[in-house]
């Protein structure tokens, strides 16, 4: 018995939709079976909250008097890209101040950067804007210094080119020294294993073949309503999958957009990774319409059925070698210890399971009280059949051969 999204929306409008989170549905399906659950349940909500470096914000300041074609801009001394129309800039989450010592005194602290500017804006704090330009007849101003606040901006929206990675590596360190990575501090000799996925709650792991999630899908982004605007960068639908179709390594990604003025710092937070840099933790959730039994089967996926690939970040990862250490599942990762090469290794997750759960719960409430209707995707993401891969960059001479 298939359901359309319109039929589900009619039920949502009447406050009659049956909604579960991707965690709750597991038990429900175990008790009632796929068939009955697919008939009874209309929507399953997912969530994730973790550092997503490929995030950033478009801001429009409005025009100063006299006008200025902002060429270079800094927000709280963090560079924002200004080579767009006169008063538009893009600030990337991982940008650091020009005078930040970075890793010159290793490990660097990275206490402030683009992610923090974005968090300050969303928190409603004043941010110092400094800009320079060369001056034109129509835009004579060459310098500008002022404070801005998100309330006064014409537009402030996140446009994150790569979020919500469908599965991710588990990082370990097989070397003899401590290493500092985007997955945290890794102790020598596989002293710990860090991962970053919400597992059974993660949006794309609940719709592994992108049947319902596509361009135009309405989502939870940073506490507000956002949209999937494109396939994400590095979107790799042909990544290795297990027999249930779930990728066992980084696979699909989505590019997402949403209005920062509606967002909350509970779900968008700056991140300082010692020895690595600055990033932004993004809270993102996607409602999945249960259009048929196959979707119910997909959303009932549980942590023990999802594997992740363990990679050595002291050698294989930085040198782009294909070697993997082993595979482990998310139930074991979430238990706090996993066994790797015969030794018991403590685990930690950069991604917060408790906030992922809270986001899925929020989406559930929005749908139950009729304030969020589901959207039909307007275009599919490239799927496994597209043959699209994640290509490496081969260093070559001009006109030289590539592997293709």
């Amino acid at each position, binding site marked *: 018995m298939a359901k359309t999204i319109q039929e589900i929306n009619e039920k949502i409008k009447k406050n009659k939709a049956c909604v579960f989170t991707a965690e709750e549905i597991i038990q429900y399906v175990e008790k009632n079976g796929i068939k009955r659950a697919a008939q009874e349940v209309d929507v399953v909500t997912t969530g994730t*909250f*973790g*550092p997503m470096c490929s995030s950033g914000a478009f801001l429009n300041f409005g025009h100063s008097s006299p006008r200025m074609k902002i060429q270079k801009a800094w927000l709280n001394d963090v560079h924002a890209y200004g080579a767009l129309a006169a008063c538009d800039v893009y600030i990337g989450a991982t940008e650091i101040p020009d005078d930040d010592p970075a890793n010159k005194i290793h490990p660097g*602290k990275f*206490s402030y950067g683009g992610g923090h500017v974005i968090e300050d804006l969303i928190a409603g704090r004043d941010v110092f804007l400094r800009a320079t330009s060369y001056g034109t007849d129509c835009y004579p101003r060459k310098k500008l210094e002022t404070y801005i606040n998100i309330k006064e901006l014409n537009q402030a929206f996140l446009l994150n080119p790569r979020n919500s990675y469908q599965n991710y590596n588990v990082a370990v360190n097989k070397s003899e020294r401590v290493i500092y990575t985007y997955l*945290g*501090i890794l*102790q020598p000799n596989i*002293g*710990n294993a*860090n991962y970053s996925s919400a597992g059974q709650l993660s949006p794309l792991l609940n719709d592994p073949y992108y049947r319902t999630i596509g361009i135009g899908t309405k989502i939870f982004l940073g506490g507000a309503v956002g949209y999937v605007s494109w396939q994400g960068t590095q979107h790799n639908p042909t990544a290795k999958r297990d027999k249930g179709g779930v990728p066992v390594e980084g696979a699909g990604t989505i590019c997402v957009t949403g209005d920062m003025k509606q967002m909350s710092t509970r779900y968008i*937070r700056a*991140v*300082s*990774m*010692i020895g690595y840099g600055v*990033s932004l*933790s993004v809270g993102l959730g996607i409602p999945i319409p249960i259009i048929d039994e196959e979707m119910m089967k997909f959303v009932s996926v549980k942590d023990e059925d999802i594997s992740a690939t363990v990679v050595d970040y002291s050698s294989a990862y930085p040198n782009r070698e294909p070697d993997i250490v082993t595979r482990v599942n998310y139930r074991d990762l*979430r*238990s*706090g210890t996993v066994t790797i090469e015969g030794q018991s290794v*403590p*685990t*930690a*997750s*950069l*991604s*917060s*399971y*408790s*906030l992922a759960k809270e986001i899925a719960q929020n989406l559930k409430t929005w749908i139950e009280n009729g304030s969020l209707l589901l959207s039909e995707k307007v275009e599919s993401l490239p799927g496994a059949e597209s043959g699209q891969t994640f290509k490496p960059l081969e260093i070559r001479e001009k006109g030289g051969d590539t592997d293709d």
Partner: protein
Amino acid sequence: MTSQKIVLHFPRKIVNQPVIWTLIKEYDLECSILKANITPSEEGLMVLELKGNNDNYKLGIDFLTELGLKIQPLSQDIIRNKERCIDCGVCIPVCPAGALEADPETRKVSFNDSKCVVCEFCVQVCPFKAMEVRFE
């Protein structure tokens, strides 16, 4: 037997005195220095685990107080800001004292300040700046 972790604030005038030597020799106390930052002619700070029989412990504390040292229990010094913490658990494997733990079910992180040795590793590694050092 008394065993406690304490924070000692040394005024500048007694930075050069052999305080720990006295605690060991005169009062028969076990001293484990967890952290020390004492520079001649400046104020100093030491985190100390002090252990001994009850009478000696009390006499030792009296000696420190008479010298003019400010003593406070250790537990106040590292604070977990629950608003900033997202329960990621990155701090857990770096904590040498086992003061940070995650609930196996909910994955919520808890901080047991009685185990904390104020090494500040968690302060450095926390991506969300949720672990704060506070000296009052």
